[in-house]
C-alpha cells in the first residue's frame, strides 16, 4: 500500500455533518430575505455605476514611450538595492491563533543602466492609463522576455484619497486567485491594490499569468508599484495583455478599471542544457527550466540551491535553503516547466553556467523502472496499481 493510500484510509472516515446542506440552504434563505429588504436603494447605485463606466470608456489614453532609467531601477533595483531580511507570515497558526513567521533573505543589486539598455533594447513599451470616479490607474512601462517572464510598473492615484487602501507598507506581495496579500516586516497582512493580468480572451477569472507585486512607494493619494509576472507552461506572450485594477475587496469595479496593453517584442533567450536532457532558457530577467520528455517528476521537483555563475567569477544565488534566500520574484511550475523571474538584471552573454541542486519525487513500476509522470494516474484520480514512490537527488549544471 502506498503512503497516499494509507493516508487516504486514515482520513476517509471524516465527513461533513449530515445536516450541512440543510444548514447552507437555511443560511442562503436568510440572506435572500435580508437582501429583499435592502433592494430599494440599489437602483440608484446601479445608475451611478453605469454613468461612471460611460465616462471611463472615453478617458483611456495612450502613453508615449519615454526614458527607461527610472523604470529599470523600479524593476531591477536602484541604488538602495542590497541585502534585506523579511518576515514572511506563514499559513501556520499556534494554539492561541497567533500567526507564525519565518525569515527570508533577499539580495538585490543596483541595475547597470548601460547593460539594461543594451540587453533589453526594443523590449520595453509604454503603457496606458484610465480615469474614472476620481481615480487614475496607469501602467507606465512594460518589459518582456520570450521565455515567458516580464515586469511592469503601475500607479494608482486619487487626489481625494485612495479607495479602500488598507496597506501602506507592504514589502512582500503574493497573488492568489483574486486577492493580493502583502506582508509587512511586522508580519501583518493586508490587501494591496494590485492589477490582474490576463491574456486576451481569458476574462477576469483566467489564470495564465502569475504575478507578484512589490510596492515602490505609497501615500494616502498615490501608490507606485512593480509587478513581476510569468506565464504558465509553454505559453508565449501574445500581442496584447489585459490589465484589471481591483480597487476594493469585492472587486465590483473591476470591469471599469481595465486596460489593454500592446506588448513589445520580447527579449531573446539563450538555451542552456544539462545532464539527461534537462534544458534551461535564460533571458535577462528570468529562467525557465524544463526536465526531459518522459521524466518521472512532473511538477514534483524543486531546487534548494539554484545559482547563476558569471564570467567574472561572481555568482547570483537565485534560491538557497540556508539561510532561506529568495532572489526571484515569481516562481511558477506547470506540467513540469518551472519559470522564475529574477530580482535583478542578468546579461546572458556573461553567464558561464547555472547550477541546480534539489530533489525530485516520482514512482517506479513493478520492475523498478521510473514511470513518466503523465502515466502515473491514467484516469487522473487513482494511481496505477503496483507503483512505489521514490525520491532522486538532482545535481545539474546547465551550460551553453
Amino acid at each position, binding site marked *: 500500500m502506498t*503512503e*497516499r493510500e*494509507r*493516508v*487516504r*484510509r*486514515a*482520513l*476517509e*472516515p*471524516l*465527513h*461533513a*455533518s449530515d445536516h*450541512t*446542506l440543510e*444548514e*447552507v440552504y437555511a*443560511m*442562503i434563505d436568510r*440572506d435572500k430575505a435580508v437582501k429583499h429588504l435592502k433592494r430599494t436603494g440599489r437602483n440608484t447605485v446601479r445608475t451611478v455605476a453605469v454613468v461612471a463606466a460611460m465616462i471611463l470608456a472615453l478617458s483611456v489614453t495612450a502613453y508615449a514611450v519615454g526614458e527607461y532609467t527610472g523604470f529599470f531601477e523600479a524593476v531591477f533595483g536602484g541604488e538602495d538595492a542590497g541585502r534585506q531580511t523579511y518576515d514572511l507570515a*506563514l*499559513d*501556520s*497558526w499556534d494554539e492561541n*491563533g497567533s*500567526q*507564525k513567521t*519565518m525569515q527570508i533573505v533577499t539580495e538585490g543589486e543596483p541595475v547597470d543602466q548601460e547593460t539594461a539598455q543594451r540587453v533589453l533594447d526594443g523590449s520595453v513599451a509604454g503603457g496606458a492609463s484610465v480615469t474614472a470616479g476620481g481615480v487614475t490607474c496607469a501602467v507606465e512601462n512594460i518589459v518582456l522576455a520570450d521565455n515567458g517572464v516580464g515586469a511592469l510598473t503601475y500607479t494608482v492615484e486619487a487626489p481625494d484619497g485612495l479607495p479602500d487602501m488598507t496597506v501602506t507598507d507592504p514589502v512582500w506581495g*503574493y497573488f*492568489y*486567485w483574486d486577492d493580493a*496579500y502583502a506582508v509587512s516586516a511586522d508580519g501583518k497582512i493586508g490587501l494591496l491594490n494590485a492589477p490582474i493580468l490576463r491574456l486576451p480572451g481569458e*476574462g*477576469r*477569472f*483566467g*489564470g495564465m499569468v502569475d504575478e507578484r507585486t512589490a510596492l515602490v512607494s505609497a501615500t494616502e493619494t498615490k501608490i507606485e508599484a512593480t509587478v513581476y509576472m510569468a506565464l504558465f507552461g509553454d505559453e508565449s506572450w501574445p500581442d496584447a495583455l489585459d490589465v484589471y485594477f481591483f480597487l476594493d475587496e469585492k472587486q465590483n469595479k473591476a470591469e471599469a478599471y481595465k486596460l489593454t496593453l500592446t506588448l513589445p517584442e520580447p527579449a531573446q533567450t539563450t538555451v542552456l542544457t544539462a545532464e539527461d536532457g534537462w534544458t534551461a532558457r535564460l533571458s535577462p530577467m528570468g529562467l525557465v527550466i524544463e526536465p526531459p520528455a518522459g521524466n518521472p517528476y*512532473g*511538477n*514534483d521537483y*524543486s531546487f*534548494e540551491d539554484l545559482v547563476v555563475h558569471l564570467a567574472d567569477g561572481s555568482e547570483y544565488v537565485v*534560491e538557497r*535553503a540556508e539561510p*532561506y534566500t*529568495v532572489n526571484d520574484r515569481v*516562481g511558477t*511550475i506547470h506540467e513540469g516547466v518551472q519559470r522564475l523571474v529574477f530580482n535583478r538584471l542578468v546579461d546572458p552573454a556573461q553567464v558561464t553556467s547555472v547550477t541546480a541542486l534539489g*530533489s525530485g*519525487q516520482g514512482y517506479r513500476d513493478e520492475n523498478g523502472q521510473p514511470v513518466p509522470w503523465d502515466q502515473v*494516474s491514467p484516469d487522473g*484520480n487513482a494511481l496505477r496499481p503496483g507503483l512505489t514512490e521514490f525520491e532522486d537527488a538532482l545535481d545539474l549544471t546547465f551550460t551553453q
Partner: protein
Amino acid sequence: MLSKERFTAAAQKYMDMIFRLAFSYLKSREDADDVTQNVLVALYRTDKDFESAEHMKAWLIRVTVNECKKMLRSPWRRRGEPLEDYENALGFQAPEDRELYDAIMALDAKYRAVIVLYYYEGYSIRETAQLLGVPPATVGTRLARARQQLKFTLTEADRL
C-alpha cells in the same frame, strides 16, 4: 452565480473535502462544520466563472484555508463535544488506520494541512504551495518533517 442544481451537485461532491481540510486545521467537529457551511454559502453566492471542476476545487480549498484562519483568530470558536468522543465514533477500517489518524492529528496544524492536500487530495508540492500560500520549498520541508514525525510516532506506538 451557479444554478441550484449545479450548486447542489458541487456541494455534495466537495463538502467532505472541505470538512476534512477544515478539521485538519481546527481539530474541532463543530468549527469544521461551521467552516464547511460558510464555504458552501460563499460558493452559492460567488459570480465566478469556473473554467473547470479543478478550478472550482482549488478555489474552494483557498476559501476553506482562509475561513480556517479567520476561525482560528476568532474569539468565538465553539466548544463542542470532546474530540475523543467524536474520534471514537469514526468508522476506521483497521486499527492501523486509527493509529495513523492519531499520529496525523498529533502533528502541528501546518503539517496536517500539507498532509491532507498532498497525500489525500493528491496535489503536487507546487500546487500545495500555491493553495496554502507558502513557498514550494517550505511545503517540501514540511512534508519531510511530517513524514519523519509520523514514522517516529508510529514506531513508538509499535513498541508499546
